[in-house]
C-alpha cells in the first residue's frame, strides 16, 4: 500500500500545482483541481508521509485523522464527478446532493458511535483489525466505501453515455467501483467472521490493487489535459515574450507583463497584430529571424486557438 500511496501522493500533488493557474481563473477547472486537492489530503491521512501520531496531534489528538481521510476521499470523488459532469455536459443524478450530504452525515455519526479511543491507532489497517467487530465500524467503513463506489458508478455512467467514450475514465471508475465493492464484502466477512484469516488478506490485496490502479489511471486522465495545456502555455509564452521584445524597438507601450503571463495566447495575438500594423504603416522592418518568428507565432495561433475560415 505504501508504494501506490506514494505514487498517488505525487500525482495528486502535481494536479494541485499544475491545475492551480487554471483553477484560479476558470470556474470550470475548479472541480478537477479540488478533486486532486482532497485526494492529496486523503492520501496524507493514510499516514505514509506524515506519521499518524503527528497528524493526529495537529487535529487535536482525538483520532480525527480517520474521519478526515474518509471525508476527503468522498469529497475528492464528488469533485471528480462534478468535473466529469462539466466534461460530458450532463446534469447530476437525481437526489445526488441530498444523498451525498446524508452519506457524509451518516459516516460521521457512525464514526462517533465507535466505542474506543481512536487516538491509539497509527494506521487504517490497525484500526480495522481491532475495531471491525463493532457494527458501527463496519457501518462507518461501508458507508464511506459505498459512497465512493456509488459516485464512481455515477461518473462511469456519465462517461459511458457520452460519445466519444473516454477509455481512461471508463477503466479508472470501473476499477474503483469494483475495488470498493470487494472491500465492502471483505469488511462484512471480517465483521461476521464467517471465513478464515487467509481470505480477507487475499481480498484486501485485490482491493488495494483495484482501487489504487483505478485512482492512478484517473489521475493520469486528469493530468493529460493539464500537461498539454502547460506545453501550449509555454509555447505561447515564448512567442509572446519574443514578439513584445521586438516591439520594444518601436517604442510601443510596454505590455502588462502580468497579463502576458496570465494569458500568453492573447498577448501573442495582440503583439503579432501590433507588429503587422507597425510594418504596414510605420515602415518598421523585421530582420529575417524576427520575420520567421512572427510566421511561426502566426502558425501556432491559427493552428489551435484561432480557427481559420477556409
Amino acid at each position: 500500500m505504501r508504494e501506490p500511496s506514494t505514487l498517488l501522493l505525487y500525482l495528486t500533488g502535481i494536479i494541485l500545482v499544475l491545475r492551480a493557474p487554471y483553477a484560479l481563473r476558470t470556474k470550470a477547472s475548479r472541480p478537477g483541481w479540488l478533486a486532486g486537492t482532497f485526494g492529496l489530503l486523503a492520501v496524507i491521512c493514510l499516514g505514509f508521509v506524515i506519521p499518524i501520531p503527528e497528524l493526529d496531534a495537529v487535529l487535536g489528538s482525538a483520532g480525527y485523522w480517520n474521519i478526515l481521510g474518509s471525508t476527503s476521499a468522498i469529497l475528492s470523488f464528488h469533485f471528480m464527478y462534478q468535473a466529469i459532469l462539466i466534461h460530458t455536459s450532463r446534469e447530476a443524478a437525481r437526489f445526488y446532493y441530498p444523498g451525498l450530504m446524508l452519506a457524509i452525515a451518516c459516516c460521521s455519526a457512525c464514526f462517533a458511535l465507535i466505542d474506543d479511543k481512536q487516538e491509539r491507532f497509527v494506521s487504517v489497517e490497525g484500526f480495522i483489525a481491532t475495531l471491525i467487530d463493532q457494527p458501527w465500524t463496519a457501518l462507518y467503513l461501508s458507508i464511506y466505501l459505498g459512497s465512493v463506489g456509488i459516485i464512481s458508478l455515477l461518473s462511469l455512467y456519465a462517461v459511458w453515455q457520452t460519445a466519444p467514450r473516454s477509455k481512461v475514465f471508463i477503466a479508472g471508475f470501473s476499477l474503483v467501483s469494483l475495488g470498493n465493492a470487494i472491500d465492502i464484502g471483505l469488511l462484512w466477512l471480517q465483521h461476521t467472521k464467517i471465513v478464515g484469516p487467509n481470505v480477507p488478506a487475499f481480498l484486501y490485496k485485490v482491493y488495494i490493487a483495484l482501487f489504487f490502479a483505478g485512482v492512478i489511471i484517473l489521475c493520469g486522465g486528469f493530468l493529460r489535459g493539464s500537461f498539454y495545456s502547460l506545453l501550449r502555455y509555454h509555447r505561447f509564452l515564448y512567442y509572446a515574450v519574443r514578439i513584445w521584445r521586438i516591439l520594444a524597438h518601436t517604442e510601443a507601450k510596454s505590455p502588462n507583463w502580468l497579463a502576458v503571463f496570465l494569458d500568453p495566447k492573447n498577448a501573442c495575438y495582440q503583439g503579432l497584430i501590433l507588429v503587422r500594423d507597425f510594418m504596414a504603416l510605420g515602415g518598421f522592418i523585421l530582420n529575417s529571424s524576427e520575420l520567421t518568428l512572427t510566421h511561426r507565432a502566426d502558425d501556432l495561433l491559427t493552428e489551435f486557438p484561432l480557427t481559420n475560415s477556409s
Partner: protein
Amino acid sequence: MPRKYDNQPIRISPQSRIRAEDALSKIRLSPGMTANDVVETVAEVIGKPIVLESTVDDRFKTTTGTFAITLEFVFIVFRGIDPHSYQMHSLFHELGHLLCGHTNCERPATAPDSDPTRQLLWNEAEREAEFLAYKIAALISRKPRSSQAFG
C-alpha cells in the same frame, strides 16, 4: 464577461465601450467557432449576406481591410499577403464596424501623428471596431468547457 477578455490593448471611452459591448451582445459566439461561422452570425444580425474577398492589390499596400455596403450584400476586402491571424483580425475589425452600424472603415486624409497605431485608431468608430476585433478573437479562441474541466 470574464475579466481576462477585458485586457485589450485598445483604449476606448466608456460610451464607446458600452456601444461596442451592446453590439457584441447581438451575436452569440462560442469557443471553437471558425471565422466563417462568425461571418454567418454577423450576416444574420445585419440581414444581408457578407461576401469576402482576399486581395493582393497594390492599393492595399497600407490598408489592411475595408468594406462596402450595397443594397443586396456587404463586401469585405482584406489584404491577402498578411499572415492568417492578421487576415482574421482585419476581417473581425470590419465585422466590428458592421455590428456597430458604421457605414465605412475610414483612414484619415492626412496622417495625424507619426505613431502608426494612432493612424489606424484615429477616431471612435475605428477604436470600437478594433476593440470588437480583439473581443471576437478572444471569445472564439477560448477553450471549450469540456477542455476547461480537464485542461
